[in-house]
């Protein structure tokens, strides 16, 4: 493996958790709910998946535990913002703080433990193509799953009846209610989906990316995922682009720092953020009319009956 190939592989690994978490949040936001608790759900996913994987010595059980943990956190959020029509910003921030604390408690016995790498899935023949072969066709299952998920979310939102219902509810929940669309039910499942995705992203971090647990290991990736959704104008395809640009810039700036170009390291650290913003901005300018947030995003739904 050449150094170049190694760098490309780390880019994919750095981008995948962002992509998965952002896709989940995208679906939640398209239904009109702003969940700022991605970071908290993600870190809980990381802690629970690692704990389960070490305890039962099973990556599969670990992943399941991570998704379940994320979904449970999301269910708590759903109870607050749907059940009690609580402020979504406040509830989301609280969820992040809760997740960061609780994950530390759950993960404490597992600090110092290590997991073996997850074997990549080799697609015979294709993986032998030079340079891009290993990049595209010899990844772990999560990477394939995340790409598939992007396509499925896109198809679901734009091509299915249920996806149309979800978008309508996010656009204008008062009208949706007047037409008899099930606002609460759709939002509940959208929030749960977002939680499960954030949990899966956390599981990927703990089981594939680092293969150990340390408190607060998500290190702001949940927030990046949130920002990606906004910069990508709530479009799955653009989220994919954004996640990979951010991942690439992160990895490359690390190598640049190591190579000591004489540029202050703080400037280089800022590169991923700037690159992502500029890239997605160019994308939306080229597309013409700026696409706004879903109309009912962040507004509590209280029907008059």
């Amino acid at each position, binding site marked *: 493996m050449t150094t170049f190939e190694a760098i490309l592989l780390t880019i994919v690994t750095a981008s995948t958790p962002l992509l998965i978490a952002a896709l989940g949040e995208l679906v939640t936001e398209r239904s009109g709910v702003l969940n700022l608790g991605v970071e908290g759900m993600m870190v809980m996913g990381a802690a629970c998946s690692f704990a389960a994987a070490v305890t039962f010595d099973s990556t599969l059980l670990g992943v399941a535990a991570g998704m379940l943990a994320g979904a449970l956190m999301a269910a708590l959020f759903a109870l607050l913002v749907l059940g009690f029509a609580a402020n979504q910003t406040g509830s989301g921030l609280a969820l992040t703080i809760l997740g960061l604390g609780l994950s530390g408690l759950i993960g404490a016995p597992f600090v110092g433990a290590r997991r073996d790498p997850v074997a990549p899935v080799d697609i015979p023949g294709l993986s032998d193509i030079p340079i891009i072969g290993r990049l595209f066709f010899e990844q772990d299952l999560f990477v394939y799953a995340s790409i598939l998920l992007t396509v499925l979310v896109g198809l679901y939102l734009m091509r299915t009846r249920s996806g149309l219902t979800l978008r309508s509810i996010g656009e*204008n929940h008062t009208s949706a209610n007047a*037409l008899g669309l099930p606002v609460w039910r759709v939002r509940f499942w959208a929030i749960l989906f977002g939680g499960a995705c954030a949990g899966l992203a956390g599981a990927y971090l703990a089981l594939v990316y680092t293969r150990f647990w340390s408190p607060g290991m998500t290190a702001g990736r949940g927030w990046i995922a949130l920002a990606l959704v906004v910069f990508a104008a709530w479009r799955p395809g653009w989220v994919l682009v954004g996640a990979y640009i951010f991942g690439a810039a992160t990895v490359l700036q690390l190598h640049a720092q190591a190579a000591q170009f004489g540029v202050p390291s703080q400037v280089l650290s800022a590169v991923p953020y700037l690159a992502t913003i500029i890239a997605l901005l160019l994308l939306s300018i080229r597309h013409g009319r700026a*696409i706004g947030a879903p*109309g009912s995003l962040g507004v509590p739904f209280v029907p*008059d009956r």
Partner: protein
Amino acid sequence: MKADVPPSGQPLVELKGISKRYGDLLANDGINLSIEPGEIHALLGENGAGKSTLVKILYGVIEPSAGEIRLEGRPVTIGSPVEARALGLGMVFQHFSLFDELTVAENIAVALSGDWSLSTVREKLGEISGTYGLALDADRAIWTLSAGERQRIEIVRCLLQNPRLLILDEPTSVLTPQEAEHLFTTLDRLSAEGCSILYISHKLEEVRRLCRRATILRGGRVVATIDPRASSAREIAALMVGNAVGDIRTDAPHHPQGETLRVSNLTMPPAGLHGQALRDINLAARAGEVVGIAGVAGNGQSELFAALSGERLADHAETIAINGKPSGTMGIDARRRVGAAFVPEERLGHSAAPTHSLSENTLISHASTEVSRSGFILMNAAKRVARSIVQSFDVRTPEGDPQARKLSGGNLQKFVIGREIIRRPKLLIVDQPTWGVDAGAARLIRQALVDLAREGSAVVVISQDLDELFEVADRMAVIHQGTLSPLRPIGEWTKEAVGLEMLGVAQAEGGVHAI
């Protein structure tokens, strides 16, 4: 069990004793109504008469507190719009229930039950558009369409489900006359095909054009069911606004002096899609009198208030003169400094900040007076002012200095009106002073307005409540579609005359062209 063919003479829909209670307010009170197959039935009434509440009940959006709905003789419970549509009821809302970012086809598909693909929706849309002359482009986004086009989508959306009853809530309120005529042709055609239509309106000429039967609501009750073609506009207007004259006024005679407010040729374009333009408005209020502005909601009242208060500025300073000073281009606070005070219609969020305490809320209009000095708030002074408002205007508060939102509607209204009156303004402009307020608070507020005028201020009251205007006003004018009728002494007005002005038929009846 289920009869496939309804026995002849059976009404399609029958409402029996429908009531809806919101707290102390009875929005619908024992309403009976029946609609025959293929009939265009009008539901007439002023704003707040309970029309919208009734149709929302029929369409399953809100639950009735009491009463029964029968469909072809069978009692039914309509728990949601989905159930209503399954029963063959369709509704076109007054404020469209469309999704701005979605395309026409998507907007239609989302409301249809059953299995629809976007391509079948496109096909069906083409068919219906052709049959009824409702031209629509399936792939345009809603935000690019005009109000008339938007309404067409709502109608097509209903027609695709082959409804037996189509409900239209104030369908022409956002249409141009040409678009409205187009709509009437479509409705005539639907009725001829056997679809019943419940047509809600306060516009008399339309109802006489379309309907053979009309049910008139006032104050949540059915006052009459008539044939609008057989009754005169005067009779119908009298039924809608009521004959009972308000309480006798026991005021001392007044001697108005110079003009405190003069509005000359005020013209303003509408602020938005649902807005109303103001056309050539002339108005004067003299010190010592109460001037009333009557009219059905949405005819330019909020626009007039915004122009008078300075929320929207006129093009020329001379258009509005307060205390003789040209003020048309002055902002709200500048107008306050020349002696004016304003109470907008919306209590929470416009007159008062909901989560701020009462003392903080005094700052909203007292900012340039005794409660602040060199940019600093004098909290004790503000509390003192709040306390004196609470005492003088009998505001019942939960605790010492509560948040504005903790007060009931009536008490908060007493507070925001008291807050302005306590400043002893030379000119007070109030929009809907007793809207949604209990009778006791309403009495106190009206008395306070009259008292302020008798002490030498000019008071302008914009209200939809005619009884209220007859009680407090010395002179009155009616606003209709952004134009103001001449200002006449209250003694020269009858309720009937006001009703006709409100409906915009005063000129038509007396003039060449009767509808």
